[in-house]
């Protein structure tokens, strides 16, 4: 239940309602817990709320992992093929 996923803030209005890009899905988000977030920021999203603003370093770490997984999947598929 405490699952949270990183997503990039697309837009946010004065009531702190906005939208994020989560792996190419546009999802509504409430930014009341990160009121200083601006479009372009990476946020951690839980149950429709942004609960934390991620640093560039954290995002790089996540992307590093995802790229690594992608590379391994490609290697595996080549090996099988």
């Amino acid at each position, binding site marked *: 239940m405490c699952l949270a996923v990183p997503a990039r803030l697309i837009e946010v209005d004065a009531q702190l309602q906005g939208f994020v890009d989560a792996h190419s899905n546009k999802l509504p988000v409430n930014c009341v817990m990160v009121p200083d977030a601006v479009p372009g920021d990476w946020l951690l999203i839980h149950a429709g709320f942004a*609960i*934390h603003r991620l640093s560039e370093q954290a995002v790089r770490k996540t992307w590093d992992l995802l790229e690594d997984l992608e590379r391994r999947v490609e290697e595996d598929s080549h090996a099988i093929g």
Partner: protein
Amino acid sequence: MRLAEKIPLWLDLIAAVAERRDDTVRLMEVCGTHTMSIFRSGIPSLLPDNLKLLSGPGCPVCVTSQGDIDRILAVAQLPVVTCSYGDMLRVPGQDGSLESARAKGSDVCVVYSALDSVRMAQAQPTREFVFAAVGFETTAPATAAAVLEARRLKLRNWSVMCSHKRVVPALHALFAADTTRIDGILLPGHVSVILGSNVYRALPSLYDFPMVIAGFEDWQIVEAVARLMELAAGRQMVLENMYPEVVTPEGSIHAQQLLRVVFQLGDAEWRGLGNIPDSGLILAPAFDDFDAGRRYGVRPIEGREHPACRCGEIITGLVQPSDCKLFGTACTPVHPLGPCMVSSEGTCQAWFKYHRHEVAKREAAKL
């Protein structure tokens, strides 16, 4: 070196530390998402035989008392729309679940966010909506924000059945009871985003074992387990934050402010742990109008669990799912009898999905 490539090095470290011990090392995680990640990635099968990973009271659905579940089900019998996170839908109460109530005609709706239920109430002013709020401090601020939004919109047709719980009092209750030997604790990542690491600062020296805050990827968990093994071997009873990219010492000031404004502390009933003082978050008197229990006169219910269900012992680390005679026979994800088998983060479901063949293999090898 890429992070995932370090996993074998950490596993070697774990094996080396475990080999130097002649007893079984027992590490506990207290987060449903950790439970699922551990089993999905097959981590237990990579660990030495004398290292056990226990699942503690970290799944909010699993720790919700039978009485609280029955109160939610009682509300669902009323002419209201009961809104719930998907995790709660199939949790069995004394007489069915939200899912079976819906099959019998109750209006039950799964929502992604507490705010969705508020928006539905705003759009349909002639219908009454109740949000069934469960979860720890990660989820509770979202409920608090929904309550404030309902007040701002002056909604008269939205209320909340609140069963939110606090993690730290439960840890104190579990550790103080001293019924389960523990050598180290893997602390939850996202609850800690809200609370901050400082709330755990006093625990390691108080209960005499190390604690590590960990992320949710397989490599983060293996890294944290390796660190816990090192700390336990060196008798270093300290707290370490291995998820610093999202967990700060102070946590989320804005989320904590939401909790302070909307909730007050109250006693709460936990499955497996009983009544724990100040472990619940209940609506503050200023928000009584949004209290579904008060609005609909739903009194506390003393729930009755299935007599053979051992979920309470499983979430306190006393037994493992395979010790329950219902596990995998009468109780399966399709026909769950206890919450640990229902919840996608429950220990029993994780075992059933990813670990039961491994257990069967080990048992067969012993014969």
